[in-house]
């Protein structure tokens, strides 16, 4: 649905995007991840034809964003990072303006506004001036604006920054709901957000794509594995030796100390082995006790840090 080829953007000698290519399929929610200044916003500005690329092309359903800009723009709903809204207008007034300027038929405008207001939860603030809205409501108005014309593609630039946890959840649920029918690209630097919402992730750093795939695929690519964390009460040297002697153990590390004989250990098993049952039997068998026990999958944080180093 979206095809990006060899996209490069320079400002003078400053390279913001360096030859990136990727595509997004219909109905996919794509998370665009990267540290600040990585080029996420620039990519979005080019897809929405606000900026033109220095080199490369963006095609939506085979239509080029520069050559047939208007046709493409009609298919896209866009929420810029700064959530720009016309502050002097009232919410209803603003939504009506959006509906009109997007060319929605006059007889359908009221109905469509009603739907959008319902799905973005704007009923309470309809008659308020936009400048008086809280950050969370602004974000929702911005989102309402983006989905007004039922676009095939939604581009959301950091839609959850500055919101409180409840609002973040609401916006995320909304994105998920919308993403069932539409193609969504959204950027963020909050990692838990992508794993909670996205089908696929692209990690970008310094204007280059450094990782791409589902959260699981990325974990595999980053070369990381599952580890087991266990907190054991027992004589510290003996415990470590015993753990190291166990079969199928790749690596054992002593991590945190709670008291003189209570330590946390991180055990990396050989690939594909579930060590937990055997591990607990071993520890109990030696007469020690387990105070904490869990299996950790490598978090997105680790992958992110690994890839954007």
């Amino acid at each position, binding site marked *: 649905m979206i095809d990006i080829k060899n996209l490069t953007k320079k400002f003078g000698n400053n390279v913001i995007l360096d030859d990136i290519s990727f595509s997004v399929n219909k109905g996919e929610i794509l998370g665009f991840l990267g540290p600040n200044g990585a080029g996420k916003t620039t990519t979005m500005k080019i897809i929405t034809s606000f900026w033109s690329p220095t080199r490369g092309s963006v095609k939506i359903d085979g239509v080029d964003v520069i050559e047939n800009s208007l046709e493409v723009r009609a298919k896209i709903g866009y929420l810029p990072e700064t959530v720009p809204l016309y502050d002097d207008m009232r919410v209803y*007034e603003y939504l009506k303006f959006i509906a009109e300027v997007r060319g929605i038929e006059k007889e359908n405008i009221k109905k469509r506004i009603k739907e959008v207001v319902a799905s973005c939860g704007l009923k309470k603030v309809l008659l308020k001036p936009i400048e008086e809205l809280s950050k969370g409501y602004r974000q929702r108005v911005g989102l309402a604006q983006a989905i007004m014309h039922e676009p095939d593609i939604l581009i959301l630039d950091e839609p959850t920054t500055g919101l409180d946890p409840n609002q973040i959840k609401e916006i995320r649920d909304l994105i998920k709901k919308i993403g069932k029918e539409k193609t969504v690209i959204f950027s963020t630097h909050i990692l838990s957000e992508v794993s909670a919402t996205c089908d696929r992730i692209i990690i970008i750093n310094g204007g280059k794509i450094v990782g791409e795939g589902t959260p699981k695929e990325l974990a595999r690519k980053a070369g990381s594995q599952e580890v087991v964390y266990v907190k054991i009460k027992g004589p510290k040297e003996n415990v470590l030796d015993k753990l190291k002697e166990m079969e199928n153990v790749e690596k054992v590390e002593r991590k945190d100390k709670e008291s003189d004989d209570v330590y946390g250990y991180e055990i990396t098993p050989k690939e594909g082995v579930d060590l937990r049952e055997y591990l607990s039997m071993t520890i109990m068998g030696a007469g020690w006790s387990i105070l904490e026990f869990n299996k950790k999958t490598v978090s997105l944080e680790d992958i992110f840090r690994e890839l954007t180093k």
Partner: protein
Amino acid sequence: MDKKYFKTIYVLFKKELMSYFNSPIAYIFIGVFLIVGNWLFFKNFYLIGQASMRAYFDLLPWIFLFMSPAISMRIWAEEKKSGTIEFLLTLPITDWQVVLAKFFSALAFLFVSLMLSITLPITVMYLGNMDIGPVIGGYIGALFLGGAYLALGVFISSLTKNQIIAFVLGLVACFVAFIIGADFVLLGAPQFLVPVMKFAGLGSHFYNIAKGVIDSKDVIYYCSFIFVFLWLNTRVIESRGWK
């Protein structure tokens, strides 16, 4: 260019015009314009003792000089500052549609202000026998002159995100464009430039029309002046993100 093209311009135009009247500034603005205009006119009106609007239309270019940049300063600068320009220019509309909507909304605002000064000729007509031709010419000329000032001001507003800068630069630019054909400037100009400058200045064309003579030469002059700056405006908008 179908019906939809103009409908979109109309929607944008309506929104722009509404945003003038959404803020108290518009009313203050109109108030000041009417008070200053009436005061300066009637101050000398009884001294001269003629039932003529001539003095008013001599004054108008100078009042407009301050008023037009004040109307046009926010038109792009505000969008740039608040970031709404990013929303506006990613809508499925052409740069021309936006520029035209913005220009005509500013012109409409000026028109409304100007129409509210209609009490002036009515008063004068009541006080004495006035020739109506120059008054109508004066208003038409004022609209053309205001349009030219505004086209220039809207263009300058697109160059900056600071409204104050847009105002001051707009004022200077309008002043230069107005003064360039004035007699005392022409005196100091090289001989071969005189006819060119005389034609290029905004002022002489206004006084022609204000005399009640609507010459196609003057109308074409104003229309091309406006067109050139609106065109430059679209170029500026198009070149976003190149720097």
